């Protein structure tokens, strides 16, 4: 007990990361299925200027990230309507420009916080916001999940079932934005993508159906966060990289189990 920092800060970090890690793992199974595994990374970087401003002007990082993402998505959409370029290329442009802007805004001392997260900055308000939005997003995801999977199999099949594919795609994109904004304080913009990709991929290795896949992703996300935060409190290395490493080790284990 002497080495563990059992204090309110520890619980704030643990609760926040467990909820966000869980719902990110669940969302990840859908993103990996839709071959959008790297979207989490791109979105994480587009959030950077807002996060930088939040650090400089001392307001909530989640809010900064969210505003930045909305502007980024709007800009991509505007370019999309005016050019023949694919969304992928436009995202590449906006994401690179976002990194550049963020680096100009940020004092160098705060770089690490923004890039790999800092759970010691999580406060009671963050806990409430994260838990509330995680639950809401999980419930929405659970509802749209079958429809999204059906649309992934065949747009025509989904449309013939009167599923409004475009509407669900939009909801899904907003959800990705919210999860990234919530998670950025824990993992930073460099690592947030890992939280949607690795737990889901690990789960895919050992699952035989969609239920096991999606809830397995959630479980592995939660376990990674618990172990990562616990390791942080023992050895004192930043929690973000530790969470990612734990999930990568779990991926390795599931890979070996599959073999």
């Amino acid at each position, binding site marked *: 007990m002497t080495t563990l920092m059992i204090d309110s800060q520890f619980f704030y970090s643990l609760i926040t990361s467990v909820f966000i890690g869980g719902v990110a793992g669940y969302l990840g199974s859908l993103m*990996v*299925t839709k071959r959008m595994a790297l979207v989490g990374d791109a979105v994480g970087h587009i959030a950077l200027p807002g996060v930088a401003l939040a650090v400089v002007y001392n307001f909530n990082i989640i809010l900064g990230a969210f505003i930045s993402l909305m502007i980024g998505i709007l800009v991509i959409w505007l370019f999309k309507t005016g050019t023949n370029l694919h969304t992928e290329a436009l995202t590449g442009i906006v994401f690179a420009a976002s990194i550049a802007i963020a680096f100009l805004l940020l004092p160098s001392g705060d770089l690490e916080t923004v890039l790999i997260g800092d759970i010691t900055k999580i406060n009671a308000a963050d806990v409430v916001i994260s838990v509330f939005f995680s639950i809401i997003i999980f419930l929405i995801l659970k509802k749209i999940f*079958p*429809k999204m*999977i*059906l649309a*992934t*199999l*065949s747009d*025509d*099949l989904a*449309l*013939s*079932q009167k599923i409004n594919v475009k509407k669900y795609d939009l909801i899904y994109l907003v959800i990705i934005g919210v999860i990234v904004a919530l998670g950025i304080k824990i993992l930073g913009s460099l690592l947030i993508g890992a939280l949607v990709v690795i737990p889901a991929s690990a789960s*895919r290795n050992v*699952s*035989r*159906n*969609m*239920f*096991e*896949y999606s809830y397995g992703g959630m479980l592995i996300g939660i376990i990674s966060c618990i172990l990562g935060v616990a390791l942080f409190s023992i050895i004192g290395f930043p929690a973000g990289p530790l969470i990612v490493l734990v999930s990568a080790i779990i991926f390795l284990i599931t890979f070996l189990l599959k073999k």
Partner: protein
Amino acid sequence: MNKDSSGFILQIKDLNVSLGGQKIIEGVSLNLKDKENLMIVGPNGAGKTIMLKALLGLIPYEGEIKWKENIKIGYVPQRLSMPKEIPLSVEEFFKFKSASMEKIRESLESVGLNDFCILKMELGMISAGQFQRVMIAWSLIDKPDVLLFDEPTAGIDIGGEETIYNLLKKIEKSINITIILVTHDLNIVYRLADNVLCLNKKALCYGNPKEALSPENIDKLYKGEIKFYDHTHD
């Protein structure tokens, strides 16, 4: 508004479809009676799949497509492939339609899948023949009035083709449904169709298969390249 006494469940008037500035279907008109089987034949790229999509309202079109009121349409798309990275089980696939276990079993039996172990298998892991049957069972589960079926022989090995034909025959008899089928296989047309539509952008022939599919019409449809039972895809 659609309560007419024509007895038709589908009326198509001067259907035109353009995609990307190119005319795909031009001036097709026909009427379909209840329980009538319509087969649409034509070479690759003739607009057959597009025609089904227009009938389903999935793509924009000009002209008139009038279905009977409150009609329920089942749809089996063409060569749907199941990516292996999605571990969707057959049971989960059926749950998308919120069907009860009893209904799922009943539906699987109706397409000749009597071993319910298949429910626990991944959709991406079952054979092409089983997959085709699952798709049919899935489309039949909410008891549609019409089944739109795109190239049932596509993707199935030669040994399985006869079975799909038998299956269609069985479905038609047991649940008394209207089938609109797009196919390459003139064999199936001769044996199952009440009417056939020869489509190559325009309707080149329409009517009873024995009369409509005259050697001249077939020749015109496939522009002299017809190999009678050839339905390979490129």
